[in-house]
């Protein structure tokens, strides 16, 4: 069974080029020729191109592979070609039907990759550009393409902070360049550059023709000021000349939690309560009820709740995509509609997307016009359980894990489910909330409406000289709705605001105009030139409005009843930026042996003042295809292709606020408590004579008129090797990039009146190795086995920071009790994103104390934690690193590493007759996780009364268990610090994707008027090897260069099984 229409997506670009080259005119010829184009299995190939050699005349084979064409004479030669197949030239034969067999072309070097403003053959690349295999990416149904990209491409690190449906994916290419600013790459969608990493979710993955990742500077410098973080080029599908193709892809399946965390059962829970408050227990769990006093033994096998069982669900998902494409030489079209709907494994969470697009290309003489539009509406229900609020006790999993499994004797167990709060918990100090009720009742919805119009006109002045003028307009409109009724954490009668609702909307409108001139020529087929020059203009306007009302009287109306509440916070914001760029590229090659390429871009941005407005970003690269040399010819049967590449270039990063060069004043109306975090400012309001309206404009930022681009200088040395007629392809890249003038939200001496300002300061180096190996292990008629394995190692080093700073300490925010305590450090000479705290040495043991009656005093030679007033046996003990006899903040050090040392993936694709099987493993090595959950659930503190704990806490230190290194249940302040006790190895090996499909033979489905029928089952996240004790090792709730790998109340990751069908008509 061959894949006529099975889409070798990566190769489609070839067809496009072919058709551009052969503009087919009307056929004048006299001699009719007929025939069939078949594959080696004997199946007809529909849509194959039949071209009269040396002319622009030709035709396309029909659904059965049949064709007919008229040729001028008997000696005419026909060229038969089809995407993914080796072209065949044959003399026309009008005597009998011609049978042409096309062989599959397994060569990847002729693939076309999309580089900035142009396409190039992979073979001709001088820089480091990787192509994603769309076939692999789409082997399992995902909501957006980036969800499937993790581990697929060397050096492209794709992860999500947690497992929430529709959650944002973070793509980092070749390490983080920027400390405080966004490190996500630039996305270029059909030529339209977007800096917003959430853009991926507005595209239907099956509309994507190809994804190319530009990694080194010679590839990215053409995007100049925005290229430093790498570029993800996304090209969507266009219509192709040929019969209309109608396809339907559908799938449905389910997801489930991969594991739950063992919690204490009723027995262990009561045992702990007894330990925390032995004086109270006689009136609570050990009270007299029904004529007898209850004891611990009564709780052995008592009915109880496990709240995780209650809050997780089997979640359904479905995906439908309908598309039609086709066209003639003059008009080509591609249209699609899709719907994706995914419930989350946490109840009341959902993500769905409705999307439609239309793309038309019209060609008349030398003018080609393309008009396209794409609209998508995504809607997300539920909010992330790890969102930062004042207290970590507001986070969902604090209640899911912490809600107690039982009640006291005499109180019905079901009361825990029915009441909004646990009546035995003092909610003034503990914000625990009925997790089921809060998850059910909280209304959180966000919508994104993304509309894009684009069009271009291309005119060919001379052969090879083309001008392309394009324009794009996008509207990205987002809306957020949240409503807290009286049964929710933030709207219950105890809350300050009572029933409340918030509505917010923001819109970004961007237009882009690009004018690109390209010229392609060669001298005697020896010297090939390709030049490009262009001017682009871009403007973007943004506005944001939100309002909130509180104390809403009629909660049954939901958002519609907001008008009846008291007006509360109103926020507005507007901003605008523009960019003017000049760019150019010159490629040269000599007989496909020696290559040279230079690019240049000048970017002017409104974000900077006139003295620094323009940034200049050059690059240069060269390649040597040494297998083209005569002396390599004898080795051709072994080494079929070898190329050495070297590149250098400068790229920039402009991810700063629109008005960061100005001193700004703002009216801040709320007294804030979070003063020491970067960018925070005291408010400007003062109620003279109790009048609430006296607000003052406060200076919120210092002017930095000299702010400019952050510049990254990158070297890349690459080697591409292909062995045994490209059965084995290998690419190795070595790179080193240094980012200077870092745009850094730099800490200032607060004696200046400011905590931080945006400055060009600091220096970061990323260097690494990437290796990709593609092999065709078996390539028999009925059996194919291809493998792809990739590795990437990146070493990140901070070279300089703000003046005088040797380390930048950061507190990852998740709870007010810890927000002032730094948990991460970026120190000169080390990688950024290192975890910071004390080294845990276990618990204080009896031998550390002098016993005096019943009291224990620490021996004088045993260091004590300074803020612990009364150290007792079983309390946590930390290393006294500086040996000064006490443990204080000077004993903190690096305790973990949030960034992986080695990442990669391993894909195996098998085909046997109609069956296809794809197995994909992903791994990450050498990174740690800061499991902040343990601060509350493996450590009993003052808030811990009635708070259930992880089952692992059963093994805590007690007088009966004096060797344990899990701290005693006590009111200890030394429990409340970051230490190596919380650090866990985050390395993992994951069976990420398995998909098994069967494609029915064409013959069998012809009667059904189908030309393709494939059914499949696909699983994701099926198995993970990891030592991490939390839900999932791929977690980072405050993801960013400074605070990677933090876990606190993260949305767990699900595994999923989907059943699907691909239909082609």
């Amino acid at each position: 069974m061959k894949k006529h229409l099975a889409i070798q997506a990566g190769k489609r670009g070839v067809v496009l080029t072919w058709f551009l080259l052969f503009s087919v005119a009307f056929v004048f010829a006299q001699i009719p020729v007929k025939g069939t184009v078949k594959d080696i299995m004997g199946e007809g190939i529909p849509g194959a191109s039949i071209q009269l050699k040396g002319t622009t005349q030709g035709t396309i084979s029909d659904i059965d592979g049949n064709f007919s064409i008229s040729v001028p004479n008997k000696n005419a030669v026909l060229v038969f070609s089809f995407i993914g197949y080796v072209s065949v030239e044959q003399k026309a034969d009008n005597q009998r039907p011609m049978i042409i067999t096309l062989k599959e072309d397994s060569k990847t070097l002729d693939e076309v990759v999309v580089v900035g403003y142009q396409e190039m053959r992979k073979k001709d690349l001088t820089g480091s550009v990787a192509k994603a295999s769309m076939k692999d990416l789409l082997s399992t149904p995902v909501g957006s393409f980036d969800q499937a990209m993790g581990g697929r491409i060397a050096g492209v690190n794709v992860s999500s902070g947690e497992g929430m449906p529709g959650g944002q994916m973070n793509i980092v290419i070749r390490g983080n360049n920027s400390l405080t600013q966004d490190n996500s790459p630039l996305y270029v969608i059909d030529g339209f550059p977007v800096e917003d990493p959430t853009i991926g979710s507005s595209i239907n993955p099956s509309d994507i023709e190809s994804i190319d990742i530009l990694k080194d500077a010679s590839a990215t410098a053409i995007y100049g000021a925005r290229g430093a973080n790498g570029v993800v080029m996304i090209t969507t599908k266009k219509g192709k000349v040929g019969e209309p193709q109608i396809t339907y892809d559908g799938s449905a399946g389910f997801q489930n939690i991969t594991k739950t965390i063992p919690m204490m059962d009723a027995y262990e829970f009561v045992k702990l309560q007894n330990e925390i408050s032995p004086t109270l227990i006689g009136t609570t769990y050990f009270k007299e009820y029904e004529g007898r006093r209850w004891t611990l033994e009564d709780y052995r096998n008592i009915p109880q709740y496990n709240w995780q069982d209650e809050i997780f669900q089997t979640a359904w998902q479905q995906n439908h995509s309908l598309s039609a494409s086709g066209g003639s030489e003059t008009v080509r079209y591609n249209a699609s509609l899709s719907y994706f709907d995914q419930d989350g494994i946490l109840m009341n969470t959902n993500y769905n997307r409705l999307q439609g697009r239309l793309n038309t290309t019209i060609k008349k003489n030398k003018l080609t016009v393309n008009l396209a539009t794409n609209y998508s509406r995504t809607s997300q229900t539920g909010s992330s359980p790890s969102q930062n609020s004042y207290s970590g006790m507001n986070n969902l999993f604090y209640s899911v894990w912490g809600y107690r499994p039982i009640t006291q004797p005499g109180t019905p167990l079901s009361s825990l489910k029915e009441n909004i709060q646990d009546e035995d918990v003092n909610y003034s100090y503990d914000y625990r909330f009925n997790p089921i009720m809060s998850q059910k009742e909280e209304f959180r919805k966000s919508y994104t409406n993304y509309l894009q119009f684009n069009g271009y006109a291309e005119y060919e002045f001379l052969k090879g000289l083309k001008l392309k003028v394009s324009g794009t307009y996008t509207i990205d409109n987002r809306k957020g709705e949240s409503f807290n009724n009286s049964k929710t954490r933030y709207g219950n009668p105890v809350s300050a605001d009572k029933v409340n609702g918030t509505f917010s909307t923001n819109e970004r409108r961007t237009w882009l105009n690009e004018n690109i001139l390209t010229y392609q020529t060669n001298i005697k087929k020896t010297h090939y030139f390709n030049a490009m020059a262009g001017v682009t203009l871009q403007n973007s306007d943004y506005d944001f409005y939100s309002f909130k009302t509180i104390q809403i009287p009629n909660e049954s109306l939901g958002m519609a009843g907001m008008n009846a509440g008291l007006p509360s916070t109103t926020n507005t914001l507007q901003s605008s930026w523009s960019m003017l760029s000049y760019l150019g590229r010159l490629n040269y090659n000599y007989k496909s042996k020696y290559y040279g390429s230079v690019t240049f871009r000048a970017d002017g941005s409104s974000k900077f003042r006139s003295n620094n407005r323009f940034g200049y970003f050059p690059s240069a690269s060269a390649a040597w295809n040494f297998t083209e040399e005569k002396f390599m010819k004898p080795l051709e049967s072994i080494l079929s292709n070898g190329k050495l590449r070297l590149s250098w270039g400068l790229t920039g990063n402009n991810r700063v606020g629109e008005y960061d060069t100005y001193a700004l004043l703002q009216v801040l109306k709320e007294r804030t408590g979070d003063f020491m975090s970067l960018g925070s400012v005291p408010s400007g309001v003062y109620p003279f004579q109790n009048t609430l309206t006296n607000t003052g404009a406060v200076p919120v930022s210092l002017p930095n008129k000299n702010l400019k681009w952050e510049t990254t200088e990158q070297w890349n040395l690459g080697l591409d090797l292909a062995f045994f007629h490209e059965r084995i392809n290998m690419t190795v890249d070595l790179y080193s990039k240094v980012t200077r003038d870092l745009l850094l939200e730099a800490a200032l001496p607060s004696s200046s009146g400011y905590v931080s300002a945006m400055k060009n300061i600091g220096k970061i180096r990323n260097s690494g190795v990437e290796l990709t190996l593609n092999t065709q292990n078996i390539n028999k008629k009925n059996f194919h086995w291809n493998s792809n394995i990739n590795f990437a190692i990146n070493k990140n080093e901070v070279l300089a920071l703000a003046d005088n700073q040797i380390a930048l300490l950061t507190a990852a925010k998740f709870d007010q009790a810890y927000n002032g305590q730094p948990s991460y450090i970026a120190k000169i000479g080390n990688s950024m994103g290192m975890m910071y705290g004390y080294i845990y040495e276990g618990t204080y043991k009896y031998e550390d104390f002098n016993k005096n009656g019943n009291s224990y005093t620490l021996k004088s030679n045993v260091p004590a934690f300074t803020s612990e007033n009364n150290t007792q046996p079983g309390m946590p003990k930390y290393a006294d690193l500086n040996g000064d006899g006490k443990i204080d903040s000077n004993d903190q050090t690096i305790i973990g590493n949030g960034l992986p040392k080695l990442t990669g993936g391993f894909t195996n694709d098998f085909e046997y007759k109609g069956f296809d099987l794809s197995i994909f493993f992903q791994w990450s090595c050498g990174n740690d996780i800061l499991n902040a959950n343990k601060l509350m659930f493996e450590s009993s503190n003052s808030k811990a009364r009635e708070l259930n704990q992880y089952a692992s806490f059963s093994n805590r230190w007690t007088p009966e268990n004096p060797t344990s290194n899990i701290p005693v249940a006590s009111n200890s302040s030394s429990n409340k610090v970051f230490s190596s006790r919380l650090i866990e190895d985050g390395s993992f090996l994951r069976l990420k994707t398995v998909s098994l499909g069967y494609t029915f033979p064409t013959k069998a489905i012809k009667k059904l008027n189908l030309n393709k029928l494939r059914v499949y089952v696909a699983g994701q996240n099926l198995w993970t090897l990891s030592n991490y004790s939390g839900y999932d090792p791929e977690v980072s709730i405050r993801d960013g260069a400074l605070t990677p790998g933090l876990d606190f109340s993260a949305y767990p990751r699900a595994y999923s099984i989907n059943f699907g069908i691909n239909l082609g008509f």
Partner: protein
Amino acid sequence: MKKIKIAVLSLFIGTSFTSCNFLDKEPTSLTPETFYSNETEAFSALTSVYANLLQSPFYGSDYLFLIGGDDLEHFGGTGRSPRTGLICNNANNADPLVSALWFDLYSGIDRANLFIENIDRTPDMDAKLKVQYKAEARFLRAYYYSVLVTCWGDVPFKTTSTQSVNNLALPRTNKQVIYDFITQEISEAANNLKSAADLNYLPGRISKSAAWGILARVCLFRAGECYRDNEQPNEEKRKEYFTQASKFAQMVMNEGHDLAPNYWDVFIDLCSDQYNTTAKESIWEIEFAGNRSTDTRTEGRIGNIIGIPAPDLSSTTLKGKDNPGFSYAFIYSTPKLLDLYEKNGDTERCDWNIAPFTYQQSTSGDRPVVSRLFEYGKKGTLKYPSYEYGPLDIEKTQAESDKNRARACAKFRREYEKSDPRAKNDTPINFPVLRYSDVLLMIAEAENEINSAPTPLAYECINKVRTRAGIAPLANLTKDEFREAMKDERAMELCFEYTRRFDLIRWGEYVQKMNEQAPIAQAGIQWTQGPANVYTYFKISSAYNYFPIPASEMSVNSEIKINNPGW
């Protein structure tokens, strides 16, 4: 060739449509350049200079913890684990409260600098008003510096606004230089401030009285600086500072202020959004307002952090005396304060300042407050107006009362808040920075020191305060006796108004008086209001005479290399 020309030309068609200022984008926010365009904006800028006073690191909340630990008050509450910070004697130089206060004060200073530099360019503004506003900003700047100096000693000092992001490292300036600045600045600014009378004795705005009174306080503290630095007292200098203190304090005497008839009048005013209803006693208050029902949030935590313990009934519809307003009651007195009142026969201030009762809740329904449990002998004896619960009120036995002589601070009481029901944590209660009784006691103290014996003026001032409190006037004391009496008087009159810690420091007694409490607390007799290890809060070292320079400052300010001693 022609075609090539056309092609190249058309490349630039798009650009030619755009004008050359395509890349100019004006900010959509206000900027200092465009501000100060009229009187309203000038007042708005002045408001923001005041605003630093009510932020949470300062009077808005955390200052109440920061300087709350002394020999009369401590962080208490049965079974409550210690806070991390100065108040529980376990702070370090990265203490977030310390860093936040430091930043808030410097933010205020920078806003004042900016205001002083720009106010003059406001068009069409009354010249007198300009001068007054400027004087207010100058006073506030000096006040922020005075807090910095009393807490930290030598600190970075600047009187121009920050204009650049570079070269911001500033060394510490000798505190004597800053004291000279404060003295000159406040005395000059006072000339241009409105008098309290012109402000209708509304103590939210800075008046001449407030300026002189605060300056007197600064001078007194300066006189005691030698003690915390372990220097030989320079009696001549000390006398000079006492003379200045007396002079400025006496200037307040002519401004029409007086003590309210009852000690509690001024505090009931503070709690109920009123000002000086009975006499012009309150000179400067930090204002708080609102009940969290509006966009503008200017509520504080006074009465909630520090107040009579009361249950949280904010989830119910209970109002009035059923729900007198939630308080965590973090601040408790030490038994020493009660001893002092009893020794002086001072029941009025005692009954107001430390709670002689706790609220009792009903056991049914929404559990409203239905009665009070009084300390022995206190039922039915309170003289101030308050919620009456009537027959259900009960009283402890003498033995029960004697078991615990550490009681919650009751100076700030939420039951007088006007809005009802009250927000859970946020209160409109103002903070009394300067009262007339403090001015009188400062004169008494300074006069005694200047003349090496209590003068008639000294007796007049201290006795006025004592008489109002209903205790016997003093007479015939030696200098030292008078000084000790004055110290006790300040304790009884001004406890929980956050002067005690600095008083002890300037008297050179802070470390000693604190450590004296430790064995008493450890013994636990008459003192059960706190965790078992409450005694450790009092075992402070001499490092506590100063705050630590925040680590966040030192890590980026290359000009500060040495922290305060012991930090």
